[in-house]
């Protein structure tokens, strides 16, 4: 593990003194890292900082993958992914979203939504193209736009308005260089799920300015106020739907997701994917297909469980004066800590060192996340109750 500019042992001298990629070097590391390192160094921490389910993958999917390994599913698949899986994905989207993508050439199985997002941006952007990124948002959105040669244009959403995707705020940021709007609903970190009306208006805005809508729908199954509203239903011709199995089916470590887009764009993504990733892991694709076929009851149970924790935890925070709109989706609450007078970093660091509860400061998700912290309730009820007691002690 040599530092990039350090001396290596043995022959050869120093690494080349030529500069690294300026684009990459200009992006700071994720602000989450610092809290991870701090939390790792401590014992007895209750972590509300985890962005993944606390359930293991449903057994039927795990068992299918074990069986697949025993029977030799250790090879590449077609670049696009196993056809039965793509058919299951497109049928599912037709059913739940009311949008019919073609399994043959409009659906690509990727190594998680992360790869799907990277492919989308690389296939779409030319140098100088702007992508509007409403924030607070998932930490990877802006860096991925920059890595692809684009210019991320963060747009602050209003916490007082439950971080609504207000088309007026978004519209004010459109320039002649704007190519796309990138957002997630339900949102990490705020947990807010956008309304059908706002998404309809956003689609109209995109149509007016001829923009793409890049929609991260990884939390689409985790909604608590009725059914998920996809933006693709309003503007299928200009929407890229990014989805996956990580959150719905508790399959984060399998690295399998998908991207569905109109055919010409999907084919360009396919071109990058075939040269870089080749395919998503074969055994993971088999597990994902089995999950779609047999784990619907597991999903329902997990969602019902998150829903109970969501109610308990947001009520508890509210009683402590850390107000938050009851989140409509995902497994995050994003309470305001204004009543404590602390910055979000001070709050998160103090809470971790004094009371051993890990949360993520809101400012790592964008400047308008300042004054908030992200708490994940993908944690056992008993842990959430203990965490509430500790937070109460901390702010007392």
């Amino acid at each position, binding site marked *: 593990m040599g530092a990039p500019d350090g001396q290596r042992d043995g022959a050869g001298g120093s690494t080349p003194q030529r500069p690294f990629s300026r684009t990459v070097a200009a992006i700071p590391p994720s602000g*989450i890292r610092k809290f991870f390192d701090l*939390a*790792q160094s401590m014992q007895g921490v209750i*972590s509300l*900082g985890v962005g993944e389910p606390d359930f293991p993958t449903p057994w039927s999917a795990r068992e299918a993958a074990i069986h697949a390994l025993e029977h030799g599913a250790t090879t590449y698949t077609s670049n696009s992914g196993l056809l039965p899986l793509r058919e299951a994905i497109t049928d599912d989207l037709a059913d739940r979203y009311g949008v019919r993508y073609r399994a043959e050439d409009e659906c690509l199985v990727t190594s998680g939504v992360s790869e799907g997002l990277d492919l989308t941006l690389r296939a779409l952007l030319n140098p100088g193209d702007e992508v509007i990124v409403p924030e607070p948002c998932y930490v*990877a959105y802006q860096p991925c736009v920059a890595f692809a040669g684009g210019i991320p244009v963060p747009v602050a959403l209003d916490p007082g308005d439950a971080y609504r995707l207000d088309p007026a705020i978004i519209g004010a940021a459109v320039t002649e260089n704007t190519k796309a709007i990138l957002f997630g609903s339900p949102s990490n970190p705020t947990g807010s799920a956008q309304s059908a009306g706002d998404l309809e208006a956003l689609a109209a805005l995109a149509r007016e300015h001829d923009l793409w809508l890049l929609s991260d729908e990884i939390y689409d199954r985790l909604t608590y106020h009725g059914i998920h509203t996809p933006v693709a239903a309003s503007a299928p011709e200009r929407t890229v739907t990014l989805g996956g199995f990580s959150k719905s089916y508790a399959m984060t470590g399998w690295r399998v997701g998908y991207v569905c887009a109109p055919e010409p764009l999907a084919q360009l993504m396919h071109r990058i994917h075939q040269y870089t990733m080749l395919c998503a892991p074969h055994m993971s694709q088999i597990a994902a297909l089995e999950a779609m076929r047999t784990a619907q009851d597991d999903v329902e149970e997990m969602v019902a469980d998150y829903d*109970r924790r969501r109610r*308990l935890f947001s009520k508890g925070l509210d009683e402590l004066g850390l107000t938050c709109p009851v989140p409509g989706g995902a497994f995050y609450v994003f309470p305001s800590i204004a009543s404590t007078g602390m910055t979000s970093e001070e709050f998160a660091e103090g809470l971790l060192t004094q009371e051993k509860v*890990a949360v993520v400061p809101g400012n790592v998700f964008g400047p308008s996340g300042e004054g908030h912290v992200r708490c994940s309730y993908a944690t056992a009820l008993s842990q959430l109750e203990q965490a509430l007691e500790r937070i109460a002690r901390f702010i007392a």
Partner: protein
Amino acid sequence: MREILTVLESDAHASAERIATLTGIDEATVREHIAAWEASGVIRRYKAVVDWDRFGDERVTAFVDVTVAPERGRGFDDVAERIARFREIRAVHLVSGAQDLRVEVEGASMKEVADFVAQKLSGIDRVTATTTHFLLRRYKDDGQLLTDPEPDQRLSVTP
């Protein structure tokens, strides 16, 4: 309303207040429903799922397949009810297949269970044969895995 029962089924200790918080149903309504269900028998009783092996108790359980000559006009009901009344019997089910009833017998020792089957169960009128399977180990009971839970392997802070 189903949600109230779901919570109680996994935690019989849950108070009405807690159930109200978890389900978003108001507390008075929760109380009313629980009282009605207790009265009507939807809620049969509140129990703990105990792993007696882990406690250190050595109990012996056997599943006994019982063949019965059914009674004219009454089928299996009379015999099944007669068997079910014994304290040693934990469960009685009428099943399809080669035998008729599958019953669960519990005792302090293998001898106690064997004596019960030989002297009581086989001696009941219309019981024509029994096949006894002693339970060796429980892995899952009442929908609850009895093996150790999988450790949480998640990193403590992730995006």
